[in-house]
């Protein structure tokens, strides 16, 4: 497992931007999660990957394609939009809803792995669990995230974590992917504490 170089202290005044994962790192991390999924699920049998929009969706497709490269198994991939299940729906202007695509085989009795880019408060995952409830009854549900930045507000943890990034609440983590933003990168936008 590749550990990050020790955090350097950034110059105090201006807000800092730090690249946590560069393009090649993101690909290595995705490869590692794919291997871990194969290991933990005994070859990804009866497994369905569901990406949470926006960036969970391409991540899920990448994981499926890496898994089929490594072990020659086809893992069904889908997209699970959680907008209508959010607990903060009423606190914002109406949000546009995204597509939900459940693989044709359904999810009943399968092992569903939810895929998202950043795990933070855990509220997105809670909404995804509720949404899953209305789509079918999986045998079990796991969670894979590219980045875990801590500060959970709900009793939720990930089964597969690409990278743990200790953060302050004032900081923000931004994941960009080639499919949605043109390039793979994980950046930490600093707060004012340092």
């Amino acid at each position: 497992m590749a550990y990050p170089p020790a955090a350097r202290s950034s110059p105090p005044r201006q807000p800092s931007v730090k690249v946590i994962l560069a393009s090649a790192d993101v690909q290595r991390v995705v490869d590692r999660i794919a291997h871990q999924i194969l290991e933990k699920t005994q070859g990804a049998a009866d497994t369905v990957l569901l990406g949470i929009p926006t960036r969970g969706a391409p991540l899920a497709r990448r994981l499926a394609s890496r898994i089929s490269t490594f072990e020659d198994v086809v893992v069904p991939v889908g997209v699970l939009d959680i907008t209508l299940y959010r607990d903060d729906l009423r606190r914002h202007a109406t949000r546009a809803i995204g597509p939900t695509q459940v693989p044709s085989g359904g999810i009943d009795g399968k092992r569903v792995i939810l895929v998202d880019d950043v795990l933070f408060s855990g509220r997105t995952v809670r909404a995804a669990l509720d949404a899953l409830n209305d789509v079918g009854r999986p045998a079990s549900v796991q969670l894979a995230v590219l980045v875990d930045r801590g500060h959970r507000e709900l009793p939720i943890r990930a089964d597969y974590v690409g990278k743990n990034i200790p953060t302050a609440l004032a900081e923000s983590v931004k994941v960009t992917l080639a499919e949605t933003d043109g390039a793979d990168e994980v950046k930490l936008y600093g707060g004012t504490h340092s």
Partner: protein
Amino acid sequence: MIRHLLSGADLDADTATEILDTAAEMATVAGREIKKLPALRGRTVVNLFYEDSTRTRISFEAAAKRLSADVINFSAKGSSVAKGESLKDTALTLQAMGADAVVVRHPASGAPHRLANWVDGSVVNAGDGTHEHPTQALLDAYTMRARLGRLAGLSVAVVGDVLHSRVARSNVLLLSTLGAKVTLVGPPTLIPVDIAGALAPGTDVSYDLDAVLPDVDVVMMLRVQRERMKDSYFPSAREYSRRYGLDGPRMRRLPEHAIVMHPGPMNRGMEITPEVADSPRSTIVEQVTNGVSVRMAVLYLLLGGNNR
């Protein structure tokens, strides 16, 4: 997002497209075992119907319930309205009960606009007099887009009693916003002078159905309202049906891909023959199904967030 949906003209192209896209996602819920979404949990939708209606009221009720809203049905018959309560007092009563949205159908054109000034919640026009019926226009546009893949550049003939049709008015407004070209077809007595220019420049008027048919992508037949027949807008039902009814031979003169629509309820044998109504080109049943998805989208976009 807008606060009320009163007219087809309330929607610009972006908002209308957002509603249609949202409706497409809502439609996938209908295919699931659990046809329910939690988005409007704890919100109250009142169906305020001063006119008889089956499909529109049931469609709004199904849409609100699929989004987990509480639905109160209020029909004028057997209510305080029968005792002489005014629209304003009824509105204030609903307001006091905490209605988040009022879906209103009223025989007077403009009643929903008045209502919108009296209540804090959102008002959705479900048909007012001979004025507008915007959710019908949205579900028609949705159906056209689903069948033909696009709306921009489509040629649509709206045939029949345009004078009394709120469906026609809302469709002309919405379809021209979305880039389709509408031709109003019917006897001169049933097409108001200058209506095309008043609603949307670029709209055509024709009194000859047979001349229009070969060039259209969509034919939308309007119901001939039986109560109008005694008002001498046309000499006889048979003559109307012969000149403006859609039968098998006329349908076969349409382009290969063209579809036939009708907002319902139909008078079979009057404006449309059973052969046409039951043909694969007819979208009449789909329109009803799509109506629920489109109304879910409208209710979600009006009530789902904090838009105040």
